[in-house]
């Protein structure tokens, strides 16, 4: 049974969980009608902030991660505020530009980021946790696990809890006054405003939440990988994240979760898929938009799945 705790599976599992966070970071702004192509940039901000703080100032990882996510969130507010004058495609292009600018800064600010060589020796969550529990006199062998099994298991569980908390947060928020405001803005911004909704506030709120989540995912990514470089946060990453959400279903949060799981596992399982992965992605986007623009999962399908009558816009 303990053989099942295989570092390889746990590693893939951890990446899936991080990708879920990223997909949700696109989903949240989208739920108020804002398409952000800057998630790779925000992810990079989170990753670099946390990595630099923990490397240079020996900050505990969890503080670093928090700082990274917050900085990304704050940048989200700073960018979100003026971007509100932009709607639809303009916002998408502006955020795409922002992501590129952030990456170029990582490449050029060599004294801080070591440029394209990247940051090595980023403290890894698993090992720090192991040292922590060892401090309490606990050894993995006490429960019959090897050190690295234990480390990967811890990381996986930790990420799982974070993802669970995030989804819980988003769902609760959605089924409330805040969530209703998001979706009303998404459906008809002008009408939403004349219903007394402060568009500015709610748009920045959802945009910044997306940025925060992307930053969080980025910071966790840095501490799982142990090494980051600017090429981890390129335009292709942003598109990949977008595809998680759009493929899985952009109208329901479970769609992001499904998209991230399915599309992360697919190339692992099917080698030939890996070879043609991007070609498949491309074709998939075109077909999806034409046939099923809301993605694989939507509220109707979910309803049918569970035998629940489609009585609620609740998951929206």
């Amino acid at each position, binding site marked *: 049974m303990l053989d099942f705790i295989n570092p390889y599976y746990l590693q893939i599992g951890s990446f899936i969980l991080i990708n879920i966070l990223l997909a949700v970071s696109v989903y949240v702004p989208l739920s108020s*009608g804002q*398409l952000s192509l800057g998630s790779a940039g925000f992810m990079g901000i989170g990753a670099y902030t946390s990595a630099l703080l923990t490397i240079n100032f020996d900050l505990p990882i969890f503080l670093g991660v928090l700082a990274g996510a917050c900085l990304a969130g704050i940048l989200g507010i700073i960018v979100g505020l*003026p*971007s509100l*004058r*932009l*709607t*639809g*495609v*303009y916002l*998408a*292009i*502006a955020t*795409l*530009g*922002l992501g*590129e*600018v952030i990456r*170029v*800064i990582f*490449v*050029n600010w060599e004294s801080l980021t070591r440029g394209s060589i990247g940051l090595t020796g980023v403290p890894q969550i698993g090992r720090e946790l192991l040292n922590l529990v060892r401090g309490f006199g606990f050894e993995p062998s006490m429960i019959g696990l090897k050190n690295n099994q234990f480390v990967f298991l811890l990381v996986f569980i930790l990420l799982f809890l974070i993802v669970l908390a995030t989804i819980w947060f988003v769902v609760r928020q959605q089924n409330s006054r805040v969530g209703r405001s998001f979706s009303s803005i998404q459906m008809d911004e002008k009408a939403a405003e004349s219903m007394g909704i402060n568009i500015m506030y709610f748009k920045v709120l959802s945009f910044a939440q997306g940025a925060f989540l992307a930053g969080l995912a980025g910071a966790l990514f840095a501490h799982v990988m142990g090494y980051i470089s600017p090429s981890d946060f390129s*335009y292709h990453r942003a*598109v990949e994240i*977008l595809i998680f959400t*759009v493929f899985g279903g952009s109208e329901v949060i479970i769609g992001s979760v499904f998209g991230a799981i399915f599309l992360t596992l697919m190339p692992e399982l099917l080698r030939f898929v890996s070879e*043609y992965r*991007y*070609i498949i*992605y*491309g*074709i*998939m*986007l*075109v077909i*999806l*938009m*034409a*046939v099923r*623009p809301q993605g694989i999962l939507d509220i109707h399908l979910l309803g049918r799945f569970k035998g629940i009558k489609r009585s609620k816009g609740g998951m929206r």
Partner: protein
Amino acid sequence: MLLEQLINGITLGSIYAIVALGFTLVFGVLGIINMAHGEIFMVGAFVGVMTTGVLGWPLWLAFAASIVVTSILGYLLERMTLRPLRGKKGVSHLAPLISTIGVSILLENLSHHIFGAGNKPFRTEFAEISIEIGQVTVYIVQIVIFAISIILMIGLSIWLSKTKAGKALRATAENLETASILGVDTKKIITLTVIIASAMGGIAGILVGMAFNSVSPQMGLAIGLKGLAIIILGGMGNVKGAMVGGLLLGLSETFLVAYGDSGYRDAIAFIMIILILLLRPQGIFGSKMAEGR
């Protein structure tokens, strides 16, 4: 040095401008940002490489081949990815954006598989001809590129304002429904627009191949993103804006390299658009407010 850099900047800027014209035409009529335009441009360049390099065709034939292939691509793009989304209930305005991103990924990676990842040389005798003006060497290709971009801009403006098809096009851009009531065959006009825009991408592709002797699958993304920045800079759907924006970007990139830090070259385009979006969202020549379409 100043003069040489000026020539470099104008050459680069002219190419940017031609790419941006394609973007702006599609946006002007359809209100769609065609994210695949850069990749169509790249395919055009590869057609040039293949016809001149492998098949040994003369340059004018390569131009023709490239225009034909990119026009077909444009037609397919409109037919398979844009038309199914048009007028469909419940399709958000983001759908065409995402759909064309799909096409761009597809074309880029297809080219990887077909042509390989590396740079392909583009050898034509024509690209070797140069003239000396004082200390400065000017290649005929550079002059041709500038001339073509100007001709395309003027031609497009005249075509839009003077000809019947152009007027129909503008009517379509104004309002799809009204135009169709007025008896404009909007379907035909839209298809025509996408085809013309794509063909211009093909022309730009060959020009880049000739000027810089390098064609690779990644160049579509790099130049496509610049073209995008330019139409925001110049004003969406504005022909003059695309031209001026292109030259402006080409010159500022060149002069940043010449007198500043070449590492930030790729960032200028985006810093420019972020600034312009904040200060004057309608672009330099735009008149309409940046409403989401």
